[in-house]
């Protein structure tokens, strides 16, 4: 991806991470999924949101890893945490107990109503591809105040119908949260390497609200498995700052050195 004048060069992947990071506000409590969400959440903590509270399902509360964890339970997460609780306590007191503002998730498949599939491709009894499964996502998506989702944009990931609803977005008809008591708002934004999407306030169908610089609506449509809607006023996603890129690259360098060092 080419750079904009007066801004440093950056990749589409960096654009995605920086945009995802900016979604987190300082002071928010964030239940962090491994991979892209973890990268974005830690970038937020190291830039504009020093007091963002990061929680990982391994039981590490308010953790400040110096390098990105490879697994959800790396030693680094415990060593830099305020405290570490048992996994049952994490899911019961902290997530189900309503202490989490935002769940930050990745996924293998997503549909127009933000339903997530991380279970399998194909039929349940005879899968074409067996994926890892639900993990923490099903309850993160319903017990956190709201949900951010980040993943790479492609026809393989943005599908017309998910093969399996592992994790509720708004249900196959967009009404899956209607009338359900004690449930979070659900997905409020989806950040990819091409754009930012938000659910329509009424129908809950995903709408592209912002294109990353240099990305066209056609590119987004081509990478999406359904006829995707665009907002009437389509924003251009602000580009990463030099500082954000520096911090992100240093973080990834430190991480590569730490994980390669064994």
């Amino acid at each position: 991806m080419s750079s904009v004048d007066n801004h440093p060069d950056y990749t589409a992947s960096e654009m995605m991470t920086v945009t995802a990071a900016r979604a987190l506000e300082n002071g928010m409590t964030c239940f962090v999924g491994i991979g892209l969400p973890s990268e974005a959440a830690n970038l937020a903590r190291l830039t504009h949101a020093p007091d963002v509270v990061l929680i990982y399902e391994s039981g590490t509360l308010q953790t400040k890893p110096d390098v990105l964890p490879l697994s959800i339970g790396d030693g680094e997460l415990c060593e830099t945490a305020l405290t570490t609780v048992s996994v049952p306590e994490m899911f019961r007191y902290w997530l189900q107990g309503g202490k989490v503002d935002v769940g930050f998730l990745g996924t293998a498949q997503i549909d127009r109503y933000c339903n997530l599939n991380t279970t399998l491709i194909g039929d349940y009894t005879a899968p074409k591809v067996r994926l890892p499964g639900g993990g923490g996502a099903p309850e993160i998506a319903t017990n956190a105040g709201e949900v951010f989702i980040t993943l790479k944009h492609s026809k393989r990931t943005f599908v017309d119908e998910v093969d399996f609803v592992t994790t509720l977005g708004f249900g196959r008809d967009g009404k899956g949260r209607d009338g359900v008591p004690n449930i979070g708002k659900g997905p409020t934004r989806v950040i990819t390497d091409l754009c930012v999407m938000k659910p329509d306030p009424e129908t809950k169908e995903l709408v592209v609200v912002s294109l990353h610089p240099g990305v066209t609506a056609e590119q987004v449509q081509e990478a999406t498995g359904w006829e995707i809607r665009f907002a009437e006023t389509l924003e251009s996603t602000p580009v990463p700052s030099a500082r954000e890129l520096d911090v992100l690259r240093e973080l990834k360098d430190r991480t590569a050195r730490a994980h390669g060092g064994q």
Partner: protein
Amino acid sequence: MAEILSLHDAVARYVEDGATVAMEGFTHLIPFAAGHEIIRQGKRDLTLIRMTPDLVYDQLIGAGCARKVIFSWGGNPGVGSLHRLRDAVEKGWPHKIEILEHSHAAMACAFEAGAAGLPLAVLRGYVGSELPRVNDQIKFIECPFTGERLAAVPSVRPDVSIVHAQKADRAGNVLVEGIVGVQKEAVLAARHSIVTVEEIVDDLETHPNACVIPGWAIDAISVAEKGSLPSYAHGYYPRDNHFYKEWDAIARDRDTFTQWIDDNVMNAGGNA
């Protein structure tokens, strides 16, 4: 009261063919040495319970020990698939296995309920998920006070649980420190339990509210130095992230997998 046994003897005594076995450790303190001992002893038809099957169950499944796997996230953390789990589920190699899958929240609650002597765990869970459609062990109940619909799952109550910990004292009291996962729950929920430890010490040297499992709640303690590698033991050695990445290539192919098991498990002795 915990008996200090060799790992060979502990597995031989408590892990029977057909048993329901929970080997826990959430990324941290995964009992690999015990898993390898089970493979060496050729145990069969096990129902394996674990939130995150990880490499340890990939190895047990590939080695033909498992009849059924109960889990909530079956990947190689940060790397990708568990190829032996996938090969068994997708292609039936070395034989078909049954899977029963939950979410982490439900499994964590099910371990907790097992430790608490309850037959079920109740949670605000599975709302809108299709997992209840494919797992008949997920039911829903109504709160008699509020009318709220809540998920219910059977508690986990294994025949034997196996966990790894940092250290035990001579009376068999065990200290677990760092990411404690569901280890204590696994031990307390089980009919029998084996704890492998890095070392046995005179004094646990700990603090008033440490996660200590008393010796009288454990059946066997076995010393297994570096017993959780390639996982890690907080305060002893780090996670071998490199091996987790290597495993992807080893496990992708049936022959390289079998060769690896032969070289590193079957012909590697153990500490009997």
